């Protein structure tokens, strides 16, 4: 057929991945007091304990603090943690995208300094991409770096930066402000820096989300000096590097497992002999979940082969967010409860959280429309 078909070869997890599952479950059992319905809690002690187990930077070279395990083992660790509701925030971004991007584009010095610390769960990264006027259109960044003696002077504003208030570093995306940047090339001059958030001139202000929680932030950069050795990759290569970083971000299995415990709660409430319509609704959700998981394992297989499954990752992210947004929609059709965030009734609080959190899912990490644009490009339409 003429049309490109996205590839999701069926994959059986290899024995080493099956073996590690038991170890992860035992670890989760030991730490069950910090497990809960919502992923994303910042818990450095937990991250360091995971680091000691060798479960951060699992696929990275040992030389840089990694463990040279397979993508399948890493996949199993992550899916077990997500299902358990483990607090992964302190290391998740570094493990998923910052570390891999440093390994790919960083200097020896950067790899030696950052990667072992990320893998130990001792260094928290956040993502410095979005801005007030550069959301989906990241290339429209207005943050500017000027070359100065010994480094760069940076001015601008970043917005929607998750966990910046707990993070040590950001991978900052901006553009060079210099005369030789081609004004007609929207990607020209794009550059990434490893920004120490304690640098003078960096101010982090909370942006409270609609759940009333402090999750994301606004970062103001006023004449921030970044030394030469913290330039990531090359000046002007930032767009390539960002594309790579986003591919790492989107290939993770965290787009359909966040509400797993709510699905479990719905099964509990349905009881062992549900009526027909309840069984059908739950069966449909479970079928969606099982299929998403098999596609995600398939992506892990492609990563193992050194492929870049960017289109496939966009497919799974779009479908995964749709599934997670459908869960509260289905839930309220099956079980009538008034949602309340702090309710004693577990289900009422899950319904509240999943309902209020739903809009964010198809925005973060690339909006639904952007993802479908990527897929359309993969089909050869753009």
């Amino acid at each position, binding site marked *: *057929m*003429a*049309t490109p*078909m*996205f590839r*999701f*070869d*069926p*994959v*059986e*997890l290899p024995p080493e991945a*099956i073996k590690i*599952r038991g170890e992860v479950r035992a670890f989760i059992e030991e730490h069950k007091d910090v497990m809960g319905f919502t992923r994303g809690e910042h818990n450095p002690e937990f991250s360091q304990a995971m680091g000691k187990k060798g479960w951060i930077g699992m696929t990275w070279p040992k030389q840089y603090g990694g463990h040279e395990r397979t993508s399948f083992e890493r996949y199993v660790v992550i*899916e077990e943690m997500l*299902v358990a509701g483990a607090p992964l925030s302190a290391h998740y971004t570094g493990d998923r995208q910052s570390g891999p991007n440093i390994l790919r584009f960083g200097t020896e010095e950067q790899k030696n300094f950052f990667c072992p610390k990320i893998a130990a769960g001792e260094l928290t990264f956040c993502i410095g991409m979005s801005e007030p006027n550069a959301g989906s259109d990241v290339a429209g960044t207005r943050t500017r770096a000027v070359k100065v003696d010994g480094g760069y002077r940076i001015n601008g504003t970043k917005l929607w930066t998750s966990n910046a208030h707990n993070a040590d570093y950001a991978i900052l995306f901006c553009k060079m402000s210099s005369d030789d940047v081609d004004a007609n090339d929207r990607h020209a001059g794009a550059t990434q820096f490893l920004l120490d958030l304690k640098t003078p001139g960096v101010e982090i202000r909370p942006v409270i989300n609609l759940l009333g929680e402090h999750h994301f932030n606004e970062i103001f950069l006023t004449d921030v000096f970044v030394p030469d050795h913290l330039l990531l990759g090359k000046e002007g290569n930032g767009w390539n590097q960002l594309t790579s970083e986003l591919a790492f971000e989107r290939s993770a299995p965290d787009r359909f497992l966040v509400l*797993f415990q709510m*699905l*479990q*709660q719905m*099964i*509990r409430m*349905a*009881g*062992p*002999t*549900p009526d*027909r319509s*309840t*069984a*059908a*609704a*739950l*069966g*449909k959700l*479970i*079928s*969606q979940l*099982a*299929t998403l*998981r*098999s*596609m995600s394992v*398939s992506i892990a*297989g492609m990563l193992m*082969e050194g492929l870049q499954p960017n289109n*496939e990752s966009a*497919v799974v992210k*779009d*479908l995964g967010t749709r599934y997670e947004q459908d869960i509260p929609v289905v839930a309220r059709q099956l079980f009538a409860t008034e949602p309340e965030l702090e309710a004693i009734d577990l289900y009422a609080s899950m319904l509240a959280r999943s309902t209020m959190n739903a809009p964010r899912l198809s925005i973060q990490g690339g909006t639904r*429309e952007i*993802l*479908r*644009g990527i*897929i*359309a490009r*993969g*089909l*050869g*339409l*753009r």
Partner: protein
Amino acid sequence: MAIRDETRMLLESMGRLFEDLCTKQVVDAAETGVFAADLWRAVSETGVPLAALPESAGGADAEWSDLYAALRVAGRFSAPIPLAETMLAGWVASSAGLEIGDGPMTVGPVRAADKLALTRDGNGWRLNGTASRLPYASHAEKIVLIADGPDGEMAVVLEGSGAPSPAKGKNIANESRDTLTFDNFHVSSDSVAPLGEGVSRAALYRRGALARATMMSGALERAMDLAVTYAQERQQFGRPISKFQAVQQNLAVLSEQTAVAVAAANLGIQSLGCGDDEREEFQIAIAKTRVGEAATLACELAHQVHGAIGFTKEYSLQLATRRLWSWREEFGSDPEWAVKVGNYFCGKGADRLWPILAGE
């Protein structure tokens, strides 16, 4: 983990065969009720229909996963032949040690509510009951049925020419779906035998459901291919409609649903040969549920992208979509299988959901 070389070769050769011999003219002719004998003969000569059988029974001990992959190709080309039915009929009959030929066969019951009963009559048997909507029964050389005997389920092999004359019916893709009614119908003793290990009416039903799910994943590939190609050719407002974002977004969703359908069918196929009936049952239930859901959405989108031309008999999109609308109901609809998935996991309890999905 990649697809095996043997599988790839089989799929390529099946693809070429259907490309040459399963044209729209052939499918159109078959839809008028004339059996596609030339196509059947060519497919039969590849050995694929009976390849799963042991070599002693004329087969090739082939992997079921390869044969299901071949069904996906057949689905892609709307092949108007009982390929899945012949594969499954051969599996049922040979498990019971009963003779089959190499002609087209059908198998049943294909409807959950149908009941067939065998009772002893001297040296032979009497068959009672109805096997409704048997695919291609009026064109089959052998009709292989599973019926309840005095000591459990039995295989029955009937000559097509010797069976009661069927009440002809068809699905909305004009594939024949014929109903056979047995009223004290005499069957000779050498045409009846106990089923072999692993074969049962439940196993036939789910493997039939998986066959339809797999064929649907192929039909979805065809619908998507047509929609993407058409959108790049059709000009409106001075440019190809594929340049409009609204159309691109629809095609992106169509391709997502197609990818999901292939992945879901593969999930079912992966369970074959795991030796665990329970796992096979729920993974196939998941496959038929998810593929059916994908088909409903994808048909709508494929037609939307095509506009009026897709609604004509002349254009071939309808060959795929009418089959998708038929097959999603056969061997249990996706809502029916979804109930099974829900009942299974609710019965197991919430704490078992993850271990079962993750393979413990």
